[in-house]
């Protein structure tokens, strides 16, 4: 018995020691260094020469991305960057080339993140990882992604061309950990045909929204009129789920906040959350918004209701614009089909998410995607310990190249995401460039061309480019969902509360108390969430 106990204790100690050894700091054995000058060609050549001198003829990298099927440039941008760098080396007689060994792309960005989390410590994650900025703080904190602040200093002119708010979203504790890849806005879409039936004049509506003259009370008024006059089955359709943070726009529209930068805590802004839930409750009770919308099917209910004109308003995203063209949601003629660009233009008006109350600010919400570099980037390549710094700088230059205005503009046009660089925003207005893209008469990797051909055919159209140009201004009003590790848990509670409110299981006040109770019941959430304010008394909706 005693022997068994000794063995058991020895095993436990061994286990503890072994687990302590796992994930330990790696010794910094990098010996070869290259200084980045900010001159891209010069830096690429310098790195190429160093690799050549060290006998490296092939550098292998892999790219991981995720998202909707039209957003594949998130990984093909890296493939194209490799081709462009290879060309520089080949033109200058340097016998080195980059090979992208894997382009791993899945639909679910949460799944991709979890896979990266589990495989990065084992050295099996992609060298490039494009995902939501919301995951960046955790990855940076864990040391799973490369800090590029110093590298970026040499490329300040490129950094300056990105929209500043997006660069800020790519930082953690003031340090840069990635470059923005895309972003979006979430417009309020209005069916023009339904509006016309009820005498809703849309002329200069976006200006009225910008000025805070057109608020959610007006949305309610017109939604009710559309329903009562039989012009549409619903007044409003909106998105669902907690991973998609669309509905928190209400919090910002009612002047609330979700994050306190001073103490790094999430904020439960009780008055703003109450007003949000009240609006949802009122719309549902008056039959303007389906009370079970949080469990509606995207492809069979939500999108068809919008594209078939069964609602006046829809809270959506910029990517809807091409999604409605590439997916077969419209089935009024019998066989489901995608919309034509002309139909989307003719049927939909778009504006910012209106202010909650008169005089307030309209808002929109963005969830930028960021190109991040694995902190072990290049580890599968020869002499990694000696050339680690060189591989990392090459990886950085690759995301600089992948951010070229034309690559970013292609992604924007085919996926209806907003450009992250001003130069890309200019390019999408260029009709000749658009025509060249339509015929794929552009300088792009042949394999990439083949793989995006169908998407290009379905999406590249002057109407779509014009839409992107028109909605770009919305970024000036954008808010970001908090990049806080506990935000998903809070978002889940919001989702439950919205669902219960819509179904009439709770009044808005009960739903707010429910959120407070749930937050307090979870010790981690309670520590990370600051509850501010009280349920406002005598607040009315709709307002006069």
């Amino acid at each position: 018995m005693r022997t068994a106990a000794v063995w058991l204790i020895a095993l436990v100690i061994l286990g503890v020691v072994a687990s302590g050894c796992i994930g330990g700091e790696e010794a910094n054995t990098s010996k070869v260094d290259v200084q980045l000058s900010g001159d891209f060609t010069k830096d690429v050549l310098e790195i190429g020469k160093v690799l050549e001198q060290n006998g490296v003829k092939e550098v292998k990298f892999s790219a991981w991305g995720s998202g909707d099927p039209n957003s594949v440039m998130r990984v093909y941008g890296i493939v194209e960057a490799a081709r462009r760098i290879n060309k520089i080396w080949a033109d200058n007689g340097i016998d080195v080339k980059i090979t992208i060994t894997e382009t791993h792309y899945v639909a679910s960005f949460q799944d991709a993140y979890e896979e990266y989390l589990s495989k990065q410590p084992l050295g099996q994650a992609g060298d490039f990882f494009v995902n939501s900025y919301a995951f960046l703080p955790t990855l940076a904190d864990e040391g799973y992604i490369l800090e590029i602040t110093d590298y970026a200093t040499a490329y300040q002119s490129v950094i300056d061309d990105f929209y500043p708010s997006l660069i800020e979203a790519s930082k953690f504790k003031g340090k840069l950990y990635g470059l923005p890849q895309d972003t979006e806005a979430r417009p309020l879409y209005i069916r023009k045909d339904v509006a016309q039936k009820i005498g809703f004049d849309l002329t200069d509506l976006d200006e009225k929204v910008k000025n805070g003259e057109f608020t959610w009370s007006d949305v309610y008024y017109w939604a009710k009129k559309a329903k009562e006059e039989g012009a549409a089955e619903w007044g409003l359709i909106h998105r669902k789920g907690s991973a998609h943070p669309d509905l928190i726009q209400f919090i910002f529209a009612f002047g609330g906040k979700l994050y306190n930068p001073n103490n790094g805590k999430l904020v439960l802004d009780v008055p703003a959350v109450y007003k949000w839930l009240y609006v949802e409750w009122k719309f549902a009770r008056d039959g303007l918004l389906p009370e079970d919308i949080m469990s509606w099917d995207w492809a069979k209910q939500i999108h068809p209701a919008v594209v078939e004109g069964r609602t006046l308003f829809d809270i959506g995203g910029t990517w809807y614009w091409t999604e409605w063209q590439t997916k077969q949601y419209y089935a009024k003629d019998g066989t489901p089909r995608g919309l034509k660009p002309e139909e989307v233009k003719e049927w939909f008006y778009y504006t910012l998410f209106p202010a909650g109350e008169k005089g307030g600010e309209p808002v929109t919400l963005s969830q930028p995607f960021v190109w991040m570099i694995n902190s072990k980037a290049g580890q599968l390549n020869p002499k990694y310990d000696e050339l680690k710094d060189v591989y990392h700088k090459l990886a950085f230059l690759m995301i600089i190249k992948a951010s070229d205005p034309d690559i970013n503009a292609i992604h924007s046009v085919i996926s209806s995401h907003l450009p992250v660089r001003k130069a890309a925003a200019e390019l999408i207005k260029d009709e000749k460039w658009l025509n060249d893209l339509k015929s794929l008469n552009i300088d792009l990797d042949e394999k990439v061309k083949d793989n995006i051909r169908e998407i290009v055919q379905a999406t590249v159209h002057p109407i779509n480019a014009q839409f992107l140009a028109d909605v770009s201004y919305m970024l000036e009003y954008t808010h970001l969902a908090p990049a806080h590790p506990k935000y998903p848990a809070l978002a889940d509670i919001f989702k439950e509360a919205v669902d219960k409110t819509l179904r009439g299981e709770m009044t808005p006040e009960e739903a707010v108390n429910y959120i407070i109770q749930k937050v307090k019941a979870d010790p981690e959430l309670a520590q990370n969430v600051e509850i501010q304010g009280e349920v406002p008394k005598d607040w009315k909706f709709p307002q006069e």
Partner: protein
Amino acid sequence: MKDVETRPKRYERVIILALLLASLPLILGFSLLTISSLSTNMVTNLDPDSFHSTLENWINLFKGKIATTGGIRVNIWRITLNTLVVALGVAGVVTGISALAGYSLSRIDFRGRKILMVLLLILHAFPGVALIVGVYLLYRLTFPQSHDLVGLYSFIYVILARAALEIPMSIWLMKGFFDTIPWEFEWSGIIDGASRITVWRKIMLPLIKPGVLAVALFAFLAGWQDIIYVRTFLIHPTLATFIEANIEAEYSHMPLIAAAGTVYLLPTIIFFITAQQLLLQSYSGGIKG
């Protein structure tokens, strides 16, 4: 007069009806999945108007396109092969070990035999999820330094780890089969000078062939269907992880995922249809001698 007890016919119909009703949700679910894979949109109710026939989903699946206009290609054959390797590996390991261990427990009275049998039952009581932290620690401890070996290592590890979960129950099943074989069969072999292992291989295994096949079948399905271990330990995707990563209700073209789901279900359906009799024998714990 019949020499076996028979049940009154009137009850038989009631039982068949009850069983049919009990299986209806499953049959309906599988049918809707298969029908959806042949439609432009998901058929989630019994409304015939929602069915619009197309073979596009299957064509796209075999081309490795994960969306109708999506630009990413995946090698679905490679993914299916990965799944097959894991399933066959688990089946091989489980069958081999449990056939040997089941024979020993059935025939040899060695020291600690009873404790071992009890321990096996206790091991079976542990769900795989409960063990995963420890299994992961071992995975990290034995993880190869050479990147060239990582792929192979992850296959071997996931096969062994998944097989370990199946082995305790399989040993009990095999022991049950060996218990039904009369001693005389072995004695004759041993008297003729055959070793234990020869007796096991040449006399006993052929006699319990249905049992071996049943255990192999269960193990194969366990490997084919596994997602938690495969997702945690295997570097390459299998059908389960591929489907999971691409079921993003908003972005995915769900009928295409339904086609992948149908492929994923095929072995299960084929095996259960073709091996019903075998499974009934194994559930009853043995065969007639």
